[in-house]
């Protein structure tokens, strides 16, 4: 009989523009992690284009899975389970990973676990810190999502707040595109902001005093109006000021939430968590508040399959395998308690 702790799980991630596969043992030991990014091929489109994304996933998924196994020094018969992101995401893209995982499960007689992509981001920090202390408050910010989650225990979440309009990453991307900085916008703004003065332009921090919800649409509009009226403004100053407004809003609410629920730690995840200013601010503010902060390596913040395999280990433990008759769920939400 296989002892659960040593289970080796192959994770597959195809919900957006990265095709990724990873092998994780015991929920936290990363044996391999391969990410084939489509971002470069998407760059000329100024965004992720789904029809192309699905086709590219199909093109590379077999190779990505094979590389994950080779890097882990394993073959299919040595896997104990296989997992894939089954939502949320683009239907066509999700189906590529789900179908591959189900085929492997069927061919090798191992369990299949369908994973919630948002839940996987919450677990990314456990890959570096298996003994992470709960309860914790997680800021999950990406191109499609911005939320503050109270993780009470494994599998037990309360969403304290979320964006009421645009996601934080979407704000970065749209401002960057408007300023002609290309895609993805976050890293471009991050780079330029280093040479800028974050206090040069005072952009609004919407909904700062209203609970834990976010609104980035008004900030986006304010930046666009500013650029229209001041086309000759220094670009690094603009980037630094926009970034400061976004980071301010995210970190103030994250820390306030952590104090209110008396969390033992704060964690950040999602693509926006790769932003240098955000990472620095979270560490500083947490140190000042005397609370532990976990800022995962950048590769764990952006989409990857190691976090899929990690959360699958926990879900297999608590809920058992997912039926092979289940599908892909584009509008899947984070399961919450209460």
């Amino acid at each position, binding site marked *: 009989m296989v002892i659960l702790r040593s289970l080796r799980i192959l994770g597959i991630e195809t919900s957006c523009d990265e095709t990724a596969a990873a092998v994780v043992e015991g929920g936290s030991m990363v044996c391999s992690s391969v990410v084939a990014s489509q971002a470069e091929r998407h760059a000329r*489109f*100024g*965004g*992720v*284009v*789904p*029809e*192309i994304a*699905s086709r590219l996933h199909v093109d590379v998924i077999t190779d990505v899975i094979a590389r994950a196994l080779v890097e882990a020094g394993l073959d299919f018969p040595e896997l104990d389970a296989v997992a894939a992101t089954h939502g*949320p*995401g*683009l239907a*066509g893209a999700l189906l590529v990973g789900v179908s591959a995982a189900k085929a492997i499960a069927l061919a090798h007689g191992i369990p299949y676990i369908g994973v919630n992509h948002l839940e996987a981001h919450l677990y990314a920090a456990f890959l570096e810190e298996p003994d992470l202390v709960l309860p914790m408050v997680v800021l999950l910010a990406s*191109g*499609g999502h911005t939320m503050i989650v109270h993780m009470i225990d494994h599998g037990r979440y309360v969403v304290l707040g*979320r*964006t*009421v*309009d*645009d*996601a934080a*990453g*979407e704000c970065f991307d*749209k401002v960057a595109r*408007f300023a002609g900085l290309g895609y993805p916008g976050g890293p471009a703004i991050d780079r330029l902001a280093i040479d800028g003065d974050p206090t040069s332009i005072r952009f609004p921090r919407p909904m700062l005093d209203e609970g834990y919800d976010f609104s980035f*649409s008004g900030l*986006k*509009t304010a930046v*666009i*109006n500013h650029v229209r009226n001041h086309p000759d403004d220094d670009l690094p100053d603009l980037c630094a000021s926009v970034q400061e407004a976004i980071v301010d809003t995210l970190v103030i609410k994250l820390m306030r939430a952590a104090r209110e629920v008396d969390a033992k730690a704060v964690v950040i995840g999602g693509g926006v968590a790769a932003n240098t200013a955000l990472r620095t601010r979270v560490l500083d503010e947490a140190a000042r508040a005397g609370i532990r902060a976990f800022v995962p390596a950048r590769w764990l913040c952006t989409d990857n399959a190691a976090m899929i395999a990690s959360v699958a280990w926990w879900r297999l433990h608590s809920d058992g395998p997912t039926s092979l008759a289940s599908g892909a769920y*584009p*509008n899947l939400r984070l399961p919450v308690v209460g």
Partner: protein
Amino acid sequence: MNVNPAGAGSLVVVSHSVADTHRLASQLCDVLRPGDLVLLCGDLGTGKTAFTKGLAASLGIDDQVTSPTFVLVQTYDGPVPIVHVDVYRLEHAGELEALALEELLDETAIGVIEWGDRFAAHLPPDRLEIMFSPGAGIDDRTVVLVPQGPSWHARRRLLAELVEGF
């Protein structure tokens, strides 16, 4: 609220705030029917998602309507569901196929397509086009309603009354 006549069948209103844009959407609900298609056109930050929020609230949808830019398609269930689509990130009309719009836009729901003007020729011709553009004041938006196709031409008088009373 200023009302101006505009060219060939189109109607113009000016919104002075996000609340105004919500109110316009709410009043438009009286004219909309399940199966309708609405294209929302206009630059970043002119009120397309805000309009959809107003529409959803008036249709009794409890969910928070957020920007569909990243997810491309978001369906909101309610007495009359809304299929909220955003084609901002698409570059080619061929990519519309991947969204399977013909399956999503059914007779029971109201379809709302942000940036719909980018692929106007590839979308069903019977539709209400709404163009948003910045107005004189920082929060002002000029909103132009353009009824297209027989079902909307038949409802032009209703739209005109709505615009006059706004």
